[in-house]
């Protein structure tokens, strides 16, 4: 099918979808990281931020968009990866690829990110919504769920913090290839701008990885 309705059934259409959802997820990561900074600065502010995120109607709508974005990215990834495996069924006895390991293993790093995501949502999203969360006071003296203490408790476990560090390093490799790859997929390539896009992608990957691993590492060490 080569009409616009069938666009996303073509190889290139699926690549556009991969790229758009991937970049959308990047924007989510950035906002998530900025939101978490209050973990370091102010426990009360962090608890209020968490309450805001789980109650504000606009954020709730964005949450649905985010879930759809994740699902589209994951389903598209599975379809593309399956087709790619079928396209090269026999492996070489001797194969020397010149490309980077992480550019060839987006499916693997993505799957580990997904596994991490399930663990992460189970402990913090499900745990916050339906779990047994202790109460504390907000800045006006009203009762509020103590997410801050919950995060600290989670990161005091070495295995739990270790999983975070490993998953975030793999996320970094996913982003290092994925960010610039998304521009190429959409046909945005230019002698002048592409080298800059690659640098921004790497910087983004490094900042996201270091940013997100700083929480488990800091809270694990300070609670030793």
């Amino acid at each position, binding site marked *: *099918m*080569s*009409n*616009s309705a*069938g*666009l996303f059934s*073509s*190889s*290139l*259409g*699926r*690549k*556009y979808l991969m790229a758009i959802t991937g970049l959308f997820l990047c924007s989510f990561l950035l906002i998530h990281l900025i939101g978490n900074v209050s973990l370091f600065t102010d426990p009360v502010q962090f608890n209020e931020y968490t309450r805001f995120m789980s109650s504000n109607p606009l954020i709730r709508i964005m949450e649905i968009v985010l879930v759809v974005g994740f699902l589209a990215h994951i389903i598209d990834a599975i379809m*593309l990866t399956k*087709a*790619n495996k*079928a*396209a*090269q*069924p*026999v*492996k*070489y*006895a*001797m*194969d*020397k*690829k*010149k*490309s*980077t390991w992480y*550019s*060839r293993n*987006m499916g693997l790093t993505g799957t580990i990110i997904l596994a991490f995501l399930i663990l992460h949502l189970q402990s913090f999203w499900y745990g916050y919504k339906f779990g047994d969360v202790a109460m504390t006071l907000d800045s006006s003296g009203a009762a509020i769920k103590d997410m801050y203490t919950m995060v600290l408790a989670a990161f005091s476990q070495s295995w739990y913090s270790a999983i975070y560090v490993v998953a975030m390093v793999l996320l970094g490799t996913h982003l290092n*290839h994925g960010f*610039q*790859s998304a521009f*190429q*997929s*959409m*046909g*945005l*390539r230019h002698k002048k701008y592409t080298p800059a896009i690659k640098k921004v992608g790497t910087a983004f990957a490094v900042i996201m990885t270091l940013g997100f691993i700083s929480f488990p590492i800091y809270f694990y060490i300070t609670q030793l």
Partner: protein
Amino acid sequence: MAGMNLTLKVWRQNGAEDKGRIVEYKMSDISPDMSFLEMIDVLNEELIQKGDDPIAFDHDCREGICGSCSMYINGEPHGPEDLITTCQLHMRSFKDGDTIYIEPWRAAAFPVIKDLVVDRTAFDAIIQVGGYVSVNTSGNTQDANALPIPKADADAAFDAATCIGCGACVATCKNSSAMLFTSAKISHLALLPQGKVEAQERALNMVEKMDELGFGNCTNTGDCEVQCPKGISLDNIALMNREFLGASLKSEK
């Protein structure tokens, strides 16, 4: 000067139905000045004399322009050197005592016919749905130079046109994606005024055909660009991606 001693590990497969296997051959006294294909010619002479079946491999021009000499040599299409085909590879690129793996292109869309020979009809099928310009050539063709073309476009089109359809890009791609080849064919024509007329249809039809034939999807690893004997650039894939997006949005089909 004493020649080199080599161990070859060659994929032997007696027809499409055969399972195939790697067979080891010892070669002695190989001159470094020999071309890689001459080295196989020598081996085949030996095999014929012993009454064995010679190794089937594709070759024609032996000067890097026909694109038929497909072989995956020691883990790389066309062997270890950059920007050349197998027929342009010489034994001086190897050392005495080396073990050399020789395998056919591996891709679902390029089935093995025999030994190192694969069926690349799929590339022809992609060309047939758009790798041309429909102009009347019945004696009243316009002088090509009458149409002004920006130098940069002419150069880019010419670079894309150097693709020889060898299939190394598909062979090295972990997804057996034909996007470098298809994009070279698309941009080579889309960049020129004569080809612009049908650019939209061409992009749609060639990509559709490429998908239908079972080539994989590009994940932008970049292996194809590194291994292409003609240095076809990833710029072409980006151009194809733009062309196809515009074409699918505008198309009324």
